[in-house]
């Protein structure tokens, strides 16, 4: 090896953020210091000039799903509504490193979504065609094409569920989750946003149908507007304002191997065999496991899910046999009935909602941060998040992405 692995990892630009005492009042309080909360604060300051903003985080900054996700970024969703917001996000990813002035290891190594049944093939082709008409780079590749893009995939026809082909998005890829969060945090902090950790929101105060303040473990904070970015805890928070949400919070696990020489040049996802895997920059295989069926806020899942995941992984990647599992963990994902997010206004004036991203919201971080900031600043949804209202569950205008989202992240 010419240069040791990891040598190219960034030197972290020095100062990140302060640990200020909360002020007694802010123009906008963002609840939840994950990727979405931080990005929202960043675009509020940068695009809308709103800097009297606090991001309140109950634990350590970006320690929720942001610290736990498998970092897959893509925009090849089925419906026009989804294409809109995810592709907007992907475009922002493409300039994000420069925008933030912070290395985020955004790597457009492409994502393969494998098809294993004739119906998978139909669904995949349908999605590829829809993507292309929506201006999203998407391709259908046959098993030989899969092998070319990722030689270690077992494309032989005699496996239990042979690979019949795949969709491929070349512009898709991965980024280093922590660096993304720190990049946003650092930039938001520089523009005057207060990042307040160990500050749990315990109540939402309203008067005359408008939000007035949040109660926190560090005292009451008055707020002109409050934006919820609490991912897995969204139901709990919204309930504080009397707003029921159609969400279920589930454990979702992921795992890594020890460091390995490069074997896996892209990202591979398979719904049917249930695998999604990439090899991170340092060399560890990063793999997502299935969702646990039950609601859970414990940030831990059941081990049989991991075992199933390993069996599936070896079906597709026999070379992984003697890779070793190094660490497993879990996040809390907020799953919505149609596998699409809820982003927009609420019945309470000045209270805004961003949730329901379930197993796939990392890729949306810049896009939703931008659109949500717009929504907050203008008290009106950005066109890209307009379809993702809470009302859709009443009207029936769902954006059912189960096919494109499923286990896929």
């Amino acid at each position: 090896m010419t240069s040791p692995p990891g040598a190219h990892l960034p030197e972290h630009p020095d100062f990140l953020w302060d640990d200020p005492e909360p002020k007694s009042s802010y123009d906008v309080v963002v609840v939840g210091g994950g990727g979405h909360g931080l990005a929202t604060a960043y675009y509020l300051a940068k695009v809308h000039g709103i800097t009297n903003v606090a991001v309140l985080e109950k634990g350590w900054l970006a320690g929720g799903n942001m610290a736990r996700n498998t970092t897959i970024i893509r925009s090849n969703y089925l419906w026009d509504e989804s294409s809109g917001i995810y592709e907007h996000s992907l475009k922002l990813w493409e300039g994000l490193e420069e925008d933030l002035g912070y290395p985020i290891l955004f790597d457009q190594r492409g994502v393969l979504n494998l098809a294993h049944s004739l119906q998978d093939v139909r669904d995949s082709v349908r999605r590829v065609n829809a993507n292309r008409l929506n201006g999203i780079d998407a391709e259908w590749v046959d098993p030989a094409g899969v092998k070319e893009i990722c030689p270690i995939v077992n494309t032989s026809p005699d496996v239990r569920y042979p690979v019949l082909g795949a969709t491929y998005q070349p512009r898709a890829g991965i980024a280093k989750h922590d660096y993304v969060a720190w990049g946003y945090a650092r930039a938001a902090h520089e523009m005057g946003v207060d990042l307040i950790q160990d500050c749990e929101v315990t109540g939402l105060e309203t008067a005359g149908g408008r939000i007035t303040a949040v109660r926190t473990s560090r005292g009451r904070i008055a707020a002109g507007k409050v934006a919820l970015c609490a991912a897995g805890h969204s139901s709990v928070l919204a309930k504080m304002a009397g707003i029921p949400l159609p969400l279920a919070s589930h454990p979702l696990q992921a795992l890594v191997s020890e460091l390995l020489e490069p074997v896996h040049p892209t990202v591979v996802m398979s719904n049917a065999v249930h695998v999604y895997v990439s090899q991170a920059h340092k060399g560890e295989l990063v793999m997502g496991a299935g969702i646990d069926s039950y609601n859970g806020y414990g940030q831990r899942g059941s081990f049989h899910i991991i075992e199933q995941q390993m069996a599936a992984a070896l079906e597709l990647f026999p070379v992984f046999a003697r890779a070793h599992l190094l660490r497993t963990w879990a996040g809390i994902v907020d799953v919505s009935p149609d596998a699409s997010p809820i982003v927009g206004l609420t019945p309470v004036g000045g209270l805004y909602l961003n949730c329901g991203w379930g197993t796939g919201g990392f890729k949306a971080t810049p896009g939703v941060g931008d659109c949500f900031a717009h929504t907050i600043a203008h008290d009106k949804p950005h066109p890209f998040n307009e379809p993702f209202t809470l009302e859709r569950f009443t009207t029936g205008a769902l954006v059912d992405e189960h096919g494109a989202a499923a286990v896929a992240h």
Partner: protein
Amino acid sequence: MQLIPCPWCGPREEAEFHYGGQAHVAYPEDPSALTDEEWARYVFFRENPSGPFAERWSHNAGCRRWFNAVRDTRTHDLLAVYRVGEPMPEVTA
């Protein structure tokens, strides 16, 4: 892998069970009398608390019975199981 005490078969591994979400959500008496909002509430909205949660499980690979349980969603500990039709027992989380 949780050990779930089926009220009929006794404790069995979670893999034998199917999760059914919130318990005690009755099918509306007369759906046509509901507003769209009320109907949406029934179809899509469920409690999602962090803490004790009354929920349904079915012992799918065993006796195939649905039953109810109170589980603390923070620890995943089962606090009580009870049969369909029985009231939710008092629990301390």
